[in-house]
């Protein structure tokens, strides 16, 4: 069991009032808050160690380089990568996926090929594949989601039909940011590998919430962001299997990623430097390593269990509200720590405005899932997404606030 009060004391931002009410932060699917240790790491870096990496021979440069490469090793351990060189620092999940779509897509996709993704992807794991397919003449195909509320998860029978030898790449989310669905990622990778397709996992919603082992999953590429796992904004990771990275051309070129340059040509360094042109985001990478320490000290298995308790508590209590439509897995079924819901009579933005007055931070809208919203016949939902510092008491306050709001709008 996690000691939630002790954890809450680690997060300075939680101890404030919003509109005169204690802040209840339930927008963790968008970004998580940062513990003191991560904030201190950023301050320490800029006050003591700041220098450019890989370039200087002076003390600060060596310190900064050691800390930056130490963070790479720390993150490799966090996801059980075989080699720290498989960790490429990016700005976040979006940049990581774009890097694969452009570099790998450009080298390997041709007319007649199929890129497979799913109907529940965030725009960041959908639009880059549309672009890659368009540029190469490949076709983009979607694994359908089952159920009027998306409660049935992805159609596994359809997946088997769709995974033909023409499929060169299968990109899917580990956890849906809108439905809360947890996809069987290892099974997806196994099936994709059987037809020779490369896999790309969007782990933005799962990486800080559940144990994650890239080798056990059998993933080829994994993309995630630091800021949803207690780390800073502006830093993320692309994990790629070494054998794949070594064949891949860089997407961006410049300083730091070249071994030899003449006026006529340039030769690339091996991964990871090959994919990190320019001065990297040292401070945030180092702080992301600290976030890994923080989460592992608590135990991601315990965080996952806490998320699950909150999700089931929210499902049970929210379902007592008149006129509510909850999308995603039904009560009792596996679900990550988030719940999206809608009321026919009250728009999500009105809900969020009323909740804000009660100190509650919620997300309202299409959650960068416009095609899925359209398929479910929704213009948007309200989402409450939980993390390690949230409590059942906060869910009670959420439900009480929502009850007042729907009553105000005349829903009975």
């Amino acid at each position: 069991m996690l000691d939630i009060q002790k954890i809450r004391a680690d997060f300075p931002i939680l101890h404030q009032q919003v509109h005169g009410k204690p802040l209840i932060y339930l927008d963790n699917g968008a970004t998580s808050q940062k513990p003191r240790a991560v904030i201190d790491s950023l301050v320490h870096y800029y006050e003591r160690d700041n220098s450019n990496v890989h370039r200087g021979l002076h003390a600060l440069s060596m310190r900064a380089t050691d800390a930056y490469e130490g963070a790479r090793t720390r993150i490799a351990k966090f996801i059980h990568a075989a080699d720290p060189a498989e960790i490429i620092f990016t700005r976040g999940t979006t940049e990581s996926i774009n890097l694969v779509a452009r570099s790998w897509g450009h080298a390997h996709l041709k007319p007649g090929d199929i890129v497979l993704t799913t109907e529940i992807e965030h725009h960041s794991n959908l639009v880059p594949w549309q672009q890659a397919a368009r540029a190469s003449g490949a076709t983009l195909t979607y694994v359908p989601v089952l159920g009027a509320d998306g409660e049935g998860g992805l159609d596994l029978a359809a997946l088997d039909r769709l995974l033909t030898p023409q499929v060169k790449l299968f990109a899917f989310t580990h956890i849906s940011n809108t439905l809360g669905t947890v996809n069987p990622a290892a099974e997806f990778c196994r099936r994709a590998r059987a037809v020779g397709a490369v896999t790309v996992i969007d782990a933005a919603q799962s990486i800080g919430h559940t144990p994650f082992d890239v080798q056990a999953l059998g993933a080829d590429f994994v993309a995630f962001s630091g800021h949803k796992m207690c780390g800073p904004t502006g830093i993320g990771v692309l994990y790629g299997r070494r054998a794949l990275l070594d064949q891949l051309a860089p997407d961006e070129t410049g300083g730091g990623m070249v071994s030899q340059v003449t006026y006529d040509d340039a030769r690339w360094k091996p991964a990871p430097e090959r994919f990190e042109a320019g001065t990297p985001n040292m401070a945030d990478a180092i702080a992301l390593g600290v976030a890994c320490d923080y989460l592992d000290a608590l135990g991601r298995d315990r965080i996952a269990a806490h998320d699950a308790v909150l999700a089931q508590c929210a499902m049970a209590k929210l379902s007592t509200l008149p006129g509510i439509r909850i999308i995603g897995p039904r009560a009792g079924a596996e679900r990550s720590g988030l719940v999206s819901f809608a009321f026919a009579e009250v728009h999500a933005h009105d809900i969020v405005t009323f909740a804000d007055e009660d100190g509650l931070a919620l997300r309202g809208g299409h959650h960068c899932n416009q095609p899925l919203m359209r398929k479910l016949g929704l213009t948007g939902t309200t989402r409450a997404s939980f993390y390690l510092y949230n409590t059942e008491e906060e869910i009670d306050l959420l439900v009480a606030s929502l009850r007042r709001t729907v009553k105000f709008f005349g829903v009975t």
Partner: protein
Amino acid sequence: MSADLTELYQQVILDHNRRPRNRGKLPTANRVAHGDNPTCGDQCSVYLRMDGDRIAEISFDGSGCAISQASASLMTTQIKGKTAPEVQTLYKNFHDIVTTGNAPEEISDLGAFAGVHAFPARIKCATLGWHAAIEAMKSDPMPTTTTESHVD
């Protein structure tokens, strides 16, 4: 409930949200424009039948929060029969109301939107329908195939 919230969600707004006026496609329309707020997903289409330089008929269609839907509904009742310069003047007054919170006495129901000014993120919700209407007035005429009207 805070005073700001009750000021935002006035009875006039709740009424227009619950029972929108002039909602639906206008089959006789000879102008149409579509507006959306990509960040929040609100959408609004405004259909006009221009008779000379005046709006003879108007309707709107779309989805969004109570503020955006009520504002579009109320707008249709306010600009019917008006010319483009008259609509521009009304819109300027409305924009002043939602950005400053000051509503002159003679401004009718539009004053109900004064509470929006305390919620800067919602100003674009209140102005969405107006933008679509102004765009529609500027747009090229489109051919119509029917004279039947189905505004509910």
